[in-house]
């Protein structure tokens, strides 16, 4: 079974996690044009490669960031948003 490291709870089976999609910087909703908002909501740089993604550890309700290679499915690191630690790999 594939394993993933939750930054709070440690290494767990991937079935405990929910994929939240690619991390994207949100434009200021009060200033963004309709087109900018649509681009934020829908469009992605979806080609394979190393991506910053949202993941959710469901039993503990923890949202965190994983940097993962979407071509090889290798997770490079996981951390809480804003708390990147270089060593926290699986």
């Amino acid at each position: 079974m594939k394993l993933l490291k939750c930054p709070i709870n440690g290494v767990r089976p991937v079935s405990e996690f929910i994929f939240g999609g690619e991390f994207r910087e949100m434009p200021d909703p009060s200033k963004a044009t309709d087109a900018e908002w649509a681009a934020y909501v829908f469009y992605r740089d979806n080609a394979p490669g190393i991506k910053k993604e949202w993941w959710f550890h469901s039993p503990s309700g923890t949202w965190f960031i994983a940097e993962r290679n979407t071509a090889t499915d290798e997770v490079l690191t996981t951390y809480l948003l804003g708390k990147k630690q270089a060593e926290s790999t699986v």
Partner: protein
Amino acid sequence: MPFRLLKYALNREYKEPRFFRDCQTPKKSYDAIIIGGGGHGLAAAYYLAKDHGITNVAVLEKGYIGGGNTGRNTTIVRSNYLTPDGVNFYDASVKLFEGLSEELDINLFYSNRGHFTLAHTESAMRTMRWRAEVNKHVGVKSRVVGTDEISKACPQLDISCSGKAPIQGALYHEPGSIARHDAVAWGYARGADSQGIEIFQNTEVQSIDVRDGKVHGVQTNRGYIATGKVLSAVAGFTPRICKMVDLKTPIVIHPLQACVSEPMKPWLDTILVSGSLHVYVSQSSRGELVMGASLDPYEVHSTRSTFDFVEGLTSHIVDMFPFLSNVKVVRQWAGMADMTPDFAPIMGKTPIEGFYLDAGWGTWGFKATPISGKTMAATMANDKAHDLIHSFRLSRFEDYELTGEKGAASVGH
């Protein structure tokens, strides 16, 4: 026919021509280039020649014909969608499929089975009633049926699903069919080839030459080819092609897996789909049960298989058919599904002049092969989106005019 066989038996040389020419050296330029020798790319090539007389066209396939999702799907053809736009589009495809064996002069083993989408909950029943009404409105044969009718069509099915998710009824769609998928690719390839279109296998597009917002050609492992029109019909590879032209789309790639059982005597006459149990199953002409489930739960750009898939799928199959517990799974594989947020394809023109997209086929594109070919050919020939695909345009996301086809997904996603 036996006479021809005898002639070949006595002849040292086998003179029967191959399905299509073995093209090796592309010309310097073509009127149009099609990236991707799956069903969609080949069908577009075929109709470009047949409907529009455009034959100076090359189809470039990085692997072999039909080796992509066309040869990986569970071959279900249906038109019981949820939006009138979707129902009309897929119905036009079913109609083309029905005459296709004759048109392409190849036996596609198109087999009309009837298609049951099982409902295990009250809310699923509501969606089935909705779909049935939309379908009937557009003139497509779909109706809601009770468990008695399901049992009559498939007496082997345990209506209680081992007590876990009792079936309440189903959407019955009479035109639901299966077809031999690789024959669809070969048939269109031969049809395109015989009209003069050149098909290159082992030919990969590595970059696309866009200058001043306009397509000028493609760079391949067999050199540069000039053209003013490029169609990308590469299913799960779409994000890689879009990156070459710096075009953003909402497509995300999730693997979709399938498997087949060992062959059995024919016993399953219909196609059964369960959204709640994440199962679709039919029996192939070889006697194998062809089985699929929902998407893998997160984005991956590869065709790896997982144990989780077979384990989950087979446990649900056994809930539906307890007597299958001793039957073996013999093959398992995956394809890359190009998913869109509204479960409808992305077809037509793009902001780049001469760059056309046929993508976003996710888990549902095999059934659309003929109509996507026909409408994309018309769109390329006239540089104007065919009426049937207007609502599938890429700009619908910016216009906030999504199609909302999710309720017609065969299984939950």
